[in-house]
C-alpha cells in the first residue's frame, strides 16, 4: 500500500497538493517534475489511492482507508477508475493509441470511485502526435478526472502540454535518505558499494539501486582499466578497448560508458586542480597514473568531446565509430602514450 509516510524529502510537493485538496481547489492536470527516481510516480500513486478511496471524507488529505474495496484494488493497481500510461514498444515512447485510450476512458463516468485518475509516467516520451491528441483532454476533462503527468525531462514536453498543467517540483533525495531506502530494499549490500552508488546517483533512488543491482560499479572500474591499456604505438589497443567496452550493442549501455568516462575526467580535473585526494585503492592508483601524464587543457578538451559523443549516441550515431574516435582522442591527450 502506497502511503504518504513513505514520501520524504518532498515537503513542498506534499504541501502543494495538501493545500489544493483541503481547500477543494484541486487542479485537473498536474505535472510532477524533478530528477529521476525521487518518488514522483510513487506520490502520484499515493494520491490515486487517496482520491479513489470511497471512504475518504471530502477535503481531507489522508491516505486511503486500506479497507474499502477500492483501496483493495489499488494494491494490485487493478482499479477500473485508474489508468496508467507508460512508454512501451521498441522506441520506448507513448504513442497516440495509448492517448486515445485516455480519451475513451474519460468519456465514461467513474465506475465506483468519486474520481477517475490518469497517471502518465515518463510523459516526455509521448510522441508529438500523442501529445497533440492529449491536449483536449488535458485542457478540460470532465470534472471528476485528475491527471498526473510524471516526467524528469519536462523541457521535452510540448509547450502546449506544459501550459495546460500545473507544475509540482520534486527535489533530489538527501544521501541519508537514499541510504535508508537502500537498507530497506537491499539490506545485504556492502557499505563501500552502497556509498559509491549513492555518491554517483545524484539524489535518485532508482539510479542508486540500479547502480548496485546492474553491476554499474564494475563497469565503471572496467572503463578505467581500459583507458589504462590504450597505447598510441599500437592502434589495435583502441579497437580492443572498444570491443570490450561495447560488449552489449545496446545504446543505453554505450551512453552509460560515456557517463563513466565523464566521471573519470571529472576526477582527473579534481586531482589536477588539487581538490580531490586519491586513496590507495586500485582506482586511486590508476587515476593517479593518468593524472600524471595529462595536461589540464587536454582534459578540458576531452570533456567537450565527451558531451559531443553523448549527443551522437542519442541521435542514433554508430556507437562503434563514436567510441573509436573518442578513445583515439584519449590517446592523444595523455603524454605517456605518445610516440616518443
Amino acid at each position, binding site marked *: 500500500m502506497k502511503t504518504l509516510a513513505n514520501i520524504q524529502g518532498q515537503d513542498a510537493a506534499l504541501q502543494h497538493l495538501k493545500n489544493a485538496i483541503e481547500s477543494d481547489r484541486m487542479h485537473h492536470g498536474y505535472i510532477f517534475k524533478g530528477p529521476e527516481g525521487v518518488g514522483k510516480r510513487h506520490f502520484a500513486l499515493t494520491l490515486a489511492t487517496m482520491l479513489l478511496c470511497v471512504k475518504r471524507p471530502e477535503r481531507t488529505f489522508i491516505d486511503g482507508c486500506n479497507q474499502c*474495496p*477500492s483501496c*483493495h*484494488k489499488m494494491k*494490485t493497481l*487493478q482499479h*477500473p477508475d485508474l489508468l496508467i500510461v507508460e512508454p512501451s514498444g521498441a522506441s520506448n515512447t507513448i504513442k497516440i493509441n495509448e492517448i*486515445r485510450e485516455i480519451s*475513451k476512458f474519460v*468519456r*465514461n*463516468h467513474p*465506475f*465506483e470511485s468519486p474520481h477517475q485518475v490518469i497517471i502518465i509516467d515518463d510523459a516526455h516520451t509521448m510522441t508529438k502526435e500523442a501529445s497533440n491528441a492529449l491536449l483536449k483532454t488535458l485542457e478540460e476533462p470532465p470534472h471528476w478526472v485528475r491527471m498526473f503527468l510524471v516526467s524528469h525531462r519536462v523541457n521535452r514536453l510540448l509547450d502546449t502540454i506544459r501550459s495546460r498543467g500545473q507544475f509540482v517540483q520534486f527535489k533530489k533525495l538527501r544521501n541519508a535518505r537514499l541510504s535508508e531506502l537502500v537498507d530497506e530494499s537491499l539490506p545485504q549490500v556492502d557499505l563501500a558499494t552502497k556509498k559509491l552508488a549513492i555518491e554517483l546517483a545524484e539524489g535518485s533512488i532508482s539510479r542508486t539501486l540500479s547502480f548496485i543491482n546492474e553491476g554499474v560499479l564494475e563497469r565503471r572500474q572496467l572503463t578505467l582499466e581500459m583507458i589504462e591499456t590504450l597505447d598510441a604505438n599500437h592502434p589495435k589497443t583502441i579497437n580492443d578497448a572498444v570491443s570490450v567496452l561495447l560488449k552489449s550493442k545496446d545504446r543505453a549501455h554505450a551512453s552509460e560508458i560515456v557517463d563513466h568516462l565523464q566521471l573519470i575526467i571529472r576526477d582527473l580535473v579534481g586531482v589536477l586542480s588539487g581538490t580531490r585526494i586519491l586513496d590507495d585503492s586500485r582506482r586511486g592508483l590508476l587515476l593517479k597514473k593518468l593524472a600524471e601524464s595529462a595536461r589540464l587543457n587536454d582534459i578540458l578538451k576531452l570533456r567537450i568531446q565527451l558531451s559531443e559523443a553523448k549527443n551522437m549516441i542519442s541521435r542514433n550515431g554508430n556507437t562503434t565509430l563514436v567510441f573509436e574516435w573518442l578513445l583515439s582522442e584519449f590517446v592523444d591527450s595523455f603524454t605517456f602514450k605518445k610516440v616518443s
Partner: protein
Amino acid sequence: MKFRISREAFTNELGKLQGVVSQRSTLAILSNTLLEVEGDRLKLDATDLDISVSTSCACEVEQSGKVTLQAKGLYDIVNNLEDEFVTIQVEDNYWARLDAGSVSCRIVGTHPDDFPQILDTSDIKMYPIATDVLLDMIDKTLFSVSTDDARPNITGAFFQFTENNSLLMVSTDGHRLSKIETKPENFDASSVPEALKKGIIVPRKGLVELKRNVSSKDQELSFGVKQNNIIFKQGPMSLSIRLIDGGFPDLEKVMPKDSESKAFIAKDAFVSALKFVSLFSSPKTNNVRLTLGVLDEDGETIRPELELYATDPDRGEGRKIVPVQYSGPTVKAGYNYKYIQDVLGVLDGDEVSLEIIDTLSPTLIRDVAMEEAIYIVMPMRV
C-alpha cells in the same frame, strides 16, 4: 464458502456471462466472474465496465461467501463435466475446490473485493416492455450503428419515448440512418422515466448483448434507468448498460421530405438484382447506380423500370432491369450497394418502396407493410 449445484443450471448461467467477459482488457479482473452464495441462491456477476450481467440460480448452500473465478475457464470446466451435480468449496487463499463425481480440481481465484463494484439494480423502478417489440427494434436498427470511435455519440442507438406515446429507436453512421417507431401495447406512458423522454444513447455492444441474452420466448422483460445506465431484467437475469454521453444528431434535419413519386418493387427481385449487379462494382467503393423510370429509345416515354448498373475498370460493366410500379420522372443516383443490401436484409415484407429525389438527396427505403420504419441511404457521386 461452499455450495452444491446442478451442473446444467450452472452451465446455463455461466453461458450468459461469456459475452461480456473479456480476455484482452488491461484490467485482468474483468475476465473473472464474481460468485456469491447466500440463502439458497448462487449469484453470478460479470462486467466489461460498459456492460454488466448479473444472474442467479438455485443451489444448496452449505456456507455463504464470495469469490471471483475465471469466467471462461470455469465455463469450460463445468461444461465438460459428466455428473449431474457439482460441489464448489473456496479455500482460504481464494482457490476454489471443485468436485463432481470422479473429477476433482482446484481453480485459481481472487479476493471478491478485486472485482469492480457493480451497479446495484435492486432499487430501480422497472417498466415492462414486450420482448419481441424491443428485439425487433434492435434488429431493424443495429446494422447502421456507427463503428467510428471518433464520433462516440453515434456509436449507439438513440432510444426515446416520444411525445406521441411511441417508442423510437434510431441509428446512423453518417451515411445512412434507420428509424423505427412503435406504439407498444400495455405501456404506461404516464410513468416513463424522465431520461427516456429526452432520449438516451445505448451503445452498440449493449444492444448486441441484449439480443444475445434476452430470450424471445419469454415475453416478460422490464427496463429502468439509473445513473447513466439502462437496466434490463428478465427472470433472474439483469443487464446494465452504461449509456453514451452526448447528443444524438437532430433527426428533423436529416429527414427528407416525402417525395411525390414512390416506386414499389418486389423485395426478392430487388435483392437478387442487386446481388448480380454488385459483381461488377468496385470492391473499394461498392458502387451501384440506380435509375428509376428508364427512358425509352424514343427519348420520351418513361418505362416503369428500375435499372441497376455497376462498372469497374477492372471488371467491366453489368446492368439489370427490374419491373417496378412507378409514375414519376427519370431519376438516378449512385450508392454503396451494401447499404441497400443491409436495409433489404432486415425488412420483413414482400414489397418495398423506394424514393429517389435526385443524384445527391437522401434516398428513402420503406417496407410497404410497415410504414413506421424508415431507412435513409445517402447517395454517392459515381
